[in-house]
């Protein structure tokens, strides 16, 4: 009984794909008449098993849709499409590399351990307050997220690398996906890398410091305005 309904559902779905413009009533009518044809199909299947005929390979008739074979071995006239797909892949790779680089350089100062941040802070200004506890979690989460993103991008794009890609681009791309510490091409000069690697806490602290300075400047400027208006009146 359950298999009958399953067959009914499958055949209804098949019909709706083939006859998309069928009005709703016709679809309902055809669905109502299904139990008879499904029992007929079931019966023929049973008979088949009884005869014990050898199984034979079913030829896939994929005339309507795209052929997988065609994609793998392109015909000469389809090479334009293949070239476009290749250029799209390289553009995706270049864009991904750019995003990686900007993420790495922008977040380089974020991916530091909290221990280093505390060590540096001892040598920095006295009036800087200690970072909130949530920043430790954010530090580790961000470094984990960054390394996960790098790994995922590396696996995804390695799987799609076309052997016909320019030989120079592949090593550069692969180097970009490796850890920045093991890359032969450093993203920045060694003298700058140490000074630019600041932890999240110190970076946000700087912005907060800037915010305080701005507020002080605004208050000073407003007090200047008040003095002027008092002088005039």
């Amino acid at each position, binding site marked *: 009984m359950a298999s009958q309904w399953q067959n009914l559902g499958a055949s209804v779905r098949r019909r709706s794909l083939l006859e998309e413009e069928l009005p709703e009533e016709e679809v309902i009518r055809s669905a109502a008449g299904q139990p008879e044809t499904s029992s007929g199909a079931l019966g023929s299947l049973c008979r088949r098993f009884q005869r014990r005929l050898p199984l034979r390979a079913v030829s896939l008739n994929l005339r309507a849709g795209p052929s997988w074979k065609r994609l793998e071995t392109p015909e000469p006239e389809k090479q334009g499409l293949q070239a476009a797909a290749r250029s799209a892949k390289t553009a995706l790779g270049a864009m991904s590399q750019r995003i990686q680089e900007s993420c790495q350089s922008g977040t380089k100062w974020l991916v530091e351990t909290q221990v280093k941040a505390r060590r540096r802070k001892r040598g920095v200004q006295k009036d800087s307050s200690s970072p909130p506890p949530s920043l430790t979690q954010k530090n580790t989460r961000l470094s984990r997220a960054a390394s996960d993103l790098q790994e995922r991008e590396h696996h995804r794009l390695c799987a799609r690398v076309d052997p016909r890609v320019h030989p120079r681009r592949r090593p550069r791309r692969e180097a970009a996906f490796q850890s920045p510490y093991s890359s032969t091409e450093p993203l920045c000069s060694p003298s700058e890398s140490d000074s630019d690697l600041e932890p999240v806490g110190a970076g946000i602290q700087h912005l907060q410091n800037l915010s305080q300075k701005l507020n002080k400047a605004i208050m*000073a400027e407003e007090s200047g305005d008040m003095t002027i208006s008092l002088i005039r009146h």
Partner: protein
Amino acid sequence: RDWTPQPPPSCSAEYDASMGISASKAALGATTDEPTEPEPKHLADLTQYINETNMSVVHLANILSEKTRSNSWVVVFKALITVHHLMVYGKERFIRHLASRNSLFTLHNFLDKSVTEGYTMSAFIRRYSRYLNEKSLAYRLIASDITKVKRGTDGVMRAMNTKDLLNTLPVIQTQLDALLNFNVRPDELTNGIIHAAFMLLFKDSLRLFAAYNEGILNLLDKYFDMRKNQCRESLDIYIKFLGRTTKFAQFLKVAEVQKSTSIQEFSKSMQGAGDVAQAVVRSPGMRAARVQSSAPHTNKDVVSAEN
């Protein structure tokens, strides 16, 4: 001149007309062709008219808008300064009215060839009018004057949710770009008129960048709770923030150098400008900007051509 509201007479048109005439006299007085900055007493009268009465600002705005159609750079520049002064010191009803207009200033082609300094000053007029248009448009887009919102840890930009933050920060970026595009050097502040415009721009820049900075702090705080597409947007906003930080530091240097103010009390705000400039230079934005000096899209956004 008494601005205290009188009980409405039987004929309100006459009453409105009389108030309009008084305000228009002050507006005309502030926008003469005398090559000096607008008279402080006229600006004070206009500010008082806006802040202490409920009289319509339409007629006042019409007078000032008419003045910007003059051929003389002096009159046009003084009219723009008067409008900016009322936007800054007047209640929000004035900027709200300007934001409701279909178009504000159409000075993108202005050029006064009648005098030598007309060429230079005309360039600044074009940039200044563009900033005032952007300021008015920003008010229309976010329904508030970002330079007047509450700041601090419990301020508007720190408490904003992610969706509003991602909508508001690009508006602030555009307004700040137009402000920084005024791009004046200290040796170009050669007369009282451009100096008055610069002081108003400096005042706006501090508040605008303060709100911008607080928005970025909020953005960084919320980054780890965002969806993927929001993270991409945030990263783009942050990269642009780095570029704007560089330009803002240069603007503050001009303000620091420009110490020839007539009133000594402004030197306090200039000292503040120096402190802010140092803090900006030390910020991670500036360091990252040095590392990312080859980032093409940040330079494209910041260095925009005139007009």
